[in-house]
């Protein structure tokens, strides 16, 4: 029996980490796996590797492969395949989007990769890094998946994924659907239940069809009618679907960050007092409740609620205080100059709604806030150029806090898209990237959070809280980080 999952857009390719977006990753990661993968709490665990040994100098990583892992075409997984895959990724012709993370252009460089025997794969780095395994596990890098060499055609072009995942590639009708079928020879990593992208991954479903349904209202109707078994739904649809006989709704946290960015180089918003005034004018818990239909939790930290590093310091938040906001405005010498909030209307991100509410709250303390709705591509362009005053923007998930901070911090001169241009913060982030010790890192992140609250280069107001609905016949299909995971699911027989 086929289980149907609705995707809001077609996948871009089946080529891991090359031409991808979130939907693509979700589908592809059902078919391919890397040496290591994320756990639920954002830490990295071995996947195709049985274990990972790091040399004391932190520069040599030795991966020991699990035994008995087979590719979809029946071939046994060997270190040779890992090496071949790695070399393919590092070949500029492949266009792997994460190549720059490993070739020294962004700092880290993999100097050597070898397969001394069939079960061992060794990589040597030019420097120690706390984030190396993280980068390998990144879903947008396609988990640096190990592929069988038959995945590419004779001329080196991409054909189809022959991986080691719980599902094998079925059929892709562009613009319509992709199907994957169960891989019966799958050998699951240890565990009794799915844990992020690792843990138990043995599947009960014979076939999964990822159906492209772009319109949210259609998705809702399809769920109610049973034509679709699993789909992300709008927050506003949650009450209705929960009440429906045939469907159930779950809320799943993710590490995406919903934020208001400030352009600190703006003549007006360059004034920290004004930024603090705005922060004080917004009743963040109320705003979060409103944009998430009452389900979301506020979080002002770049460390996600789900992260292992989320602690008491991270709980510290902006205080809603209109009087203080007014006072800060006066101190900042604000005279009613218009402040324009850029927002977009993509589904599943609260950009527009958050902007509307923030605008109302800001207006309440006398800030002349305006909204400019842009289409996403335009907004992204403005973001990349740093061309805005204030922007309602959502960041993709970065599970490691250091990476999460890195997303918005950096020198504006070289990268105009960066929001927080503060050498002190930069320093802390750099340290967190090198040091592997957890306690040390925690301290760094605490410092970063305090600093961020104080300078307010942006207001992070919540992490993602995604509503997914499934038909009652489908059980155990709990999405993670915005991606459906069908391996844990089964069809209820009633």
């Amino acid at each position, binding site marked *: 029996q086929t289980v149907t999952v609705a995707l809001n857009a077609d996948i871009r*390719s089946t080529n891991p980490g090359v031409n991808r977006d979130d939907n693509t990753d979700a589908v592809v990661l059902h078919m391919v796996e890397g040496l290591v993968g994320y756990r639920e709490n954002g830490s990295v665990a071995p996947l195709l590797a049985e274990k990972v040994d790091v040399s004391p100098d932190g520069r040599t990583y030795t991966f020991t492969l699990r035994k008995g892992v087979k590719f979809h075409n029946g071939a046994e997984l060997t270190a040779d395949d890992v090496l071949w895959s790695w070399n393919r990724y590092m070949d500029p012709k492949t266009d792997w989007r994460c190549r720059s993370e490993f070739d020294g252009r962004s700092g880290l460089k993999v100097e050597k990769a070898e397969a001394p025997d069939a079960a061992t794969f060794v990589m040597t780095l030019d420097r120690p890094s706390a984030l190396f395994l993280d980068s390998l596990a990144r879903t947008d890098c396609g988990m640096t998946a190990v592929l069988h060499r038959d995945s590419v055609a004779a001329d080196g072009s991409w054909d189809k994924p022959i991986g080691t995942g719980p599902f094998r590639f079925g059929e892709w009708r*562009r613009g319509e659907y992709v199907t994957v079928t169960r891989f019966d020879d799958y050998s699951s990593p240890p565990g009794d239940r799915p844990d992020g992208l690792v843990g138990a991954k043995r599947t009960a479903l014979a076939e999964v069809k990822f159906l492209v*349904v772009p319109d949210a209202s259609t998705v809702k*109707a399809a769920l109610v009618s049973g034509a*679709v078994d699993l789909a992300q739904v709008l927050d506003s649809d949650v009450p209705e679907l929960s009440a429906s006989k045939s469907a159930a709704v779950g809320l799943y946290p993710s590490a995406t960050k919903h934020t208001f960015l400030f352009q600190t180089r703006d003549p007006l918003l360059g004034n920290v007092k004004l930024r603090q005034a705005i922060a004080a004018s917004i009743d963040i818990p109320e705003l979060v409740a409103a944009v998430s239909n009452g389900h979301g939790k506020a979080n002002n930290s770049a460390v996600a609620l789900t992260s292992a590093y989320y602690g008491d310091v991270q709980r510290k938040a902006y205080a809603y205080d209109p009087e203080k906001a007014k006072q800060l405005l006066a101190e900042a010498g604000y005279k009613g100059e218009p402040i324009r909030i850029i927002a977009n209307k993509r589904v599943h991100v609260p950009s527009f709604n958050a902007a509307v509410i923030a605008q109302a709250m800001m207006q309440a303390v006398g800030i002349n806030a305006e909204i400019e709705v842009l289409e996403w591509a*335009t907004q992204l362009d403005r973001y990349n150029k740093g061309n805005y005053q204030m922007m309602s923007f959502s960041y993709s998930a970065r599970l490691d806090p250091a990476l999460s901070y890195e997303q918005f911090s950096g020198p504006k001169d070289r990268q105009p898209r960066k929001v927080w241009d503060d050498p002190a913060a930069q320093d802390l982030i750099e340290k967190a990237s090198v040091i592997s010790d957890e306690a040390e890192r925690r301290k760094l992140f605490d410092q970063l959070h305090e600093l961020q609250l104080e300078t307010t280069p942006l207001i992070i107001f919540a992490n993602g809280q995604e509503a997914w609905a499934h038909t009652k016949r489908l059980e155990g299909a709990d999405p993670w980080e915005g991606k459906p995971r069908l391996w844990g699911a089964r069809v209820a027989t009633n």
Partner: protein
Amino acid sequence: MLRFAIRRILMAVPTLAIMAVAVFVLIRLIPGDPASLMLGDLADPASLADLRERLGLDKDIATQFVIWFGNVLRGDLGLSITSGQPVLPLVLERFWVSARIVFIAVAIASLIAVPAGVIAAWRQNSALDLALVGTATVLLSIPTFWLGLLLLLLFGLKLEWLPVVGYVSFSDNPTAALLYILMPVATLFLHEMGVLIRMSRASTLEVLRLDYITHARAKGLSERAVLWRHAFKNAFGPTWTLIGLVLGNLLGGIAVVETVFTIPGLGRLLVDSIFARDYPVIQGCLLFVAFVYVVVNLVVDLLYPVFDPRVTAE
């Protein structure tokens, strides 16, 4: 006739050329960068630069245009930025999906709306007329994204007569395919009916005041014959032009309906490409749509003298 048609098609060349330049310039005026859209907010500057180089976006616009236009002249519309597929087959495939729906919908709408308009005109100011005009107006004022959803909820969910999502192509299973396109066709047809009724009514009113209608009546012809044989054809001109317009408009513009009913058609391809700034696909789509437009209008113009022999096609 054939020579004339060929000449007209050749006359489309300037239209297409204007189109090519306009599209190229316009979509590059619109802010947005396909490379950064593809890489998302996680992109780092190095890979962005890589991608831009590979896509040829690092060259200046004039150079890009010359390269693209040269390829087009050689019949090569390029590759899609997002999917890497060749543009021409992609556009053609999607076009047939949309065309089927649009043609069926417009044909049904014309077959119903034009006679309805004629009858409304014939019984001007009667209750029937008011009812028809009222219906037309209401149909005109329901957006397709609403109407489509209503149909979906009614026939898909309430009555469970028709499938809610999905699409089956005609080559796979014609009967199932029919079921799947029923609602989109109905949505479009209801929507387009409004304006056609009104246009047909207006031009029929005009014609019914002419002498030869009286003469036809003097022959003892039934009102029906007077309406259909004499009034209809003479009144059909403007409606006919409008049908051509509607047809052309829809081919590029049924994105909303395709989105609601999950149909992989040209409209959705175009809108998706616009949002993804997939330049080669946008350019290819629009060139193709423009070409179809020219052909549709050619047919409209060629047929015009059939309705009004005083007008010559040339």
